[in-house]
């Protein structure tokens, strides 16, 4: 089981601090709390649910110790938690919020209105299985539930990336061309509670990267007496929807700019912002997935490589906006593709997970379309083991050889 938490190569490099930086051994949740401090967030609301709430425990500690200066409010439900920061953002405050599992679903009404109000909230989702039965482990269905609503969704797989992505998320969300919320997904336990060495950038560099939030002409203030979200029907709603859609369409370009600036200012390179490729250059087949399952997948791939099996891995970071064309261009190079979903989408095409359906859709316009297998794996926090990864890789190889298989297979399931 220990293989699953072997850090990636990049993480080991993170141990050496540059000038003005310090290095700290922290969890994914703590890394995001540190990002909130560096971003000088104005209003933060907390409500307890595992596993995301570790971020709020750390925020509370930073406030208590005078290391952070924000209005820190403990709400009485997730619904209020998200509404409070939504309204604080409307009057120009930089805000942070978050939740997990059914807590995120309890806030669903507020999650729905936040993008359409063009509120650049940044939230953390500590991914957790949805009830019932109550379970603490990771599944991605919580964050994925808002995938159609205008939330930008990004999955990270280590604490350094969590901190960096939180800063990038503010930069992108608060860009006037976008003004859409962004949720950073961190796998429950595997990332929220797992420590790694993280380079903590200087405040000066963060200030250079992240301008002040400027609500501009949308500011709710007596000096700018506007009416926000008046009631509209068939007369105007379609045009309003189109504006939100156009913002999401602009987001990809803004994300690209932000990563380029991030690299320039902090000296840390993420390559393609939307997905990360691992040992794909000469790969025959690839696995695709999101979040911390990348760790066992990478380890298994290194083992399989020693046996001469050329398997690669593509880790999707940004799920919304979904980089369909780029991803299709990348995936069409391979003989077959296996998509690992740590989620389910019951009754969907081929009874696949959410990511597999998106990948198939993205590949459809391609001239060369490799077979795509869907795998449901690691639900409820079940470990994605090395034998699981090898089994999935073998099935993808079989698909490459033309062997017909079910479109979706559950891996690591007890018989």
């Amino acid at each position, binding site marked *: 089981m220990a293989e699953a938490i072997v850090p990636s190569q990049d993480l080991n490099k993170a141990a050496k601090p540059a000038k003005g930086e310090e290095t700290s051994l922290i969890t994914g949740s703590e890394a995001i709390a540190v990002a909130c401090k560096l971003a000088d967030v*104005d209003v933060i609301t907390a409500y307890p649910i595992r596993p995301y709430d570790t971020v709020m425990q750390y925020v509370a500690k930073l406030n208590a110790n005078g290391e952070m200066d924000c209005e820190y409010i403990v709400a009485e439900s997730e619904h*209020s938690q998200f*509404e409070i920061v939504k309204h*604080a953002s409307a*009057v*120009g405050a930089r805000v942070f919020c978050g939740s997990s599992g059914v807590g995120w679903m309890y806030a669903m009404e507020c999650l729905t209105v936040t993008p359409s109000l063009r509120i650049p909230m940044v939230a953390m989702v500590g991914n957790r299985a949805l009830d019932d039965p109550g379970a603490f482990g990771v599944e991605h269905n919580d964050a994925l539930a808002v995938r159609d609503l205008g939330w930008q969704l990004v999955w990270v797989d280590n604490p350094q990336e969590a901190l960096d992505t939180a800063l990038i998320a503010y930069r992108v969300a608060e860009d006037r061309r976008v003004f859409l919320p962004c949720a950073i997904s961190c796998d429950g336990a595997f990332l929220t509670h797992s420590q790694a060495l993280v380079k903590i950038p200087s405040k000066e560099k963060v200030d250079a990267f992240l301008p002040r939030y400027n609500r501009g002409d949308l500011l709710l203030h*007596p000096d700018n007496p506007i009416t926000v979200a008046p*009631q509209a029907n068939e007369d105007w709603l379609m045009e309003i929807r189109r504006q939100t859609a156009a913002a999401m369409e602009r987001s990809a370009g803004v994300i690209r700019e932000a990563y380029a600036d991030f690299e320039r200012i902090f000296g840390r390179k993420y390559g393609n912002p939307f997905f990360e490729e691992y040992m794909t250059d000469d790969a025959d087949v690839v696995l695709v997935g999101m979040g911390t399952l990348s760790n066992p997948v990478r380890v298994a791939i290194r083992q399989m490589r020693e046996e001469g099996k050329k398997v690669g891995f593509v880790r999707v970071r940004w799920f919304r906006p979904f980089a369909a064309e780029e991803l299709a261009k990348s995936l069409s190079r391979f003989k077959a593709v296996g998509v690992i979903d740590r989620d389910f989408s019951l009754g969907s095409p081929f009874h696949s997970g959410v990511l597999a359906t998106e990948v198939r859709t993205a590949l459809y316009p391609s001239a060369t379309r490799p077979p795509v297998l869907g795998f449901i794996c690691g639900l409820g926090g079940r470990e994605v083991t090395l034998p699981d990864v090898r089994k999935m890789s073998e099935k993808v190889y079989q698909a490459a050889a033309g062997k017909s298989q079910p479109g979706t297979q559950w891996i690591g399931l007890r018989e």
Partner: protein
Amino acid sequence: MATSDRELAELTHARAPMKLDMFKGVKKLPLEEFFTSGHRTCQGCESALVMKLMVKAAGPRTIVLGSTGCMYVANTTYYSTSWVVPWMHTQLGSSGSAALGTAAGLKALMRKGKIKDEPINVIAFCGEGGGADMGLAAISATLSHPDYNCLILMYDNESYANTDIQLSGLTPYGAHTTFSPPGKVKRIMHHRWKKNVAAMMAAGHPTCKFVATVCMSYPVHAMNAVRKGLTIGGPTFIHSLDPCPKGWDYDPMQSHELGELAVLTGVWPLYEVENGVLKLIGKTRDIADGRVKRQPVRDYLLRQGRFAHFTDDDFDYFQSKIDEMWNKWVIPGVIPFQKQLDDDKPPA
């Protein structure tokens, strides 16, 4: 550590609330309106009058948050908003959160020097469905935060009037609504007694400095209550009873009179709880002090079509509950506990 309210305010960086003087009479009211043309409320809508006078009392340096309901749908038709002050929609159960979030955002930005530090009124309004049913927990939470200045005003027209007159937790006993229609077998479909919301808020939130009941048949009192709620500091709550021609089924010209009857029959007591001190207002005080005799509730109920199916028994039952409220409650009209009788000792 804080040893007094003032020190607590300093500790929590509370901002100074707006200074607003009390109005001395209806002839002294300002002419300037901040809720103007553009709305499409019904004829005789008292809730529209609440909006108009609420924001007239608050003045131009005010942000208003409106939760879903009549006063959202009828007042902010796209491109014809009736609000002169900044206004924002909030979700049905979110008036408490909207008030808190807006106040917290302003406070953070002022405290950190990101915007000009000045008093800005924050008012969130809700209907009684959004406030006393769905939004009760959020309002309660907000009233427990001493360091944010905001007023939550609940306009109570005693049904979900915007969605077709469905019963709410504040619909009076027995009233005919689309969810409680009198039928051939069951005459009374709604058996619940109206929640006692203002007293609940006052009793349940000891640090909340101001809670009031108002009715727009007594507009100067209502406007002064708004001013007190904004001036006193911290979160405050006002519960307004609003006769509704559509939901209560009466001629729109009678709205004002029905509001008066609600008070004169003792059904709707007017009071304020300011820093923990209860003050009965106007005719309600006269009733409590015995200077004015309560009118029979029949005078009030018979004017409304929603009680047209009532029999004598129903009127008697309603009257008996109101009598109980005035004769037996430990604080008549306000707190529904009854004193333990001397010979009613609990078992040893």
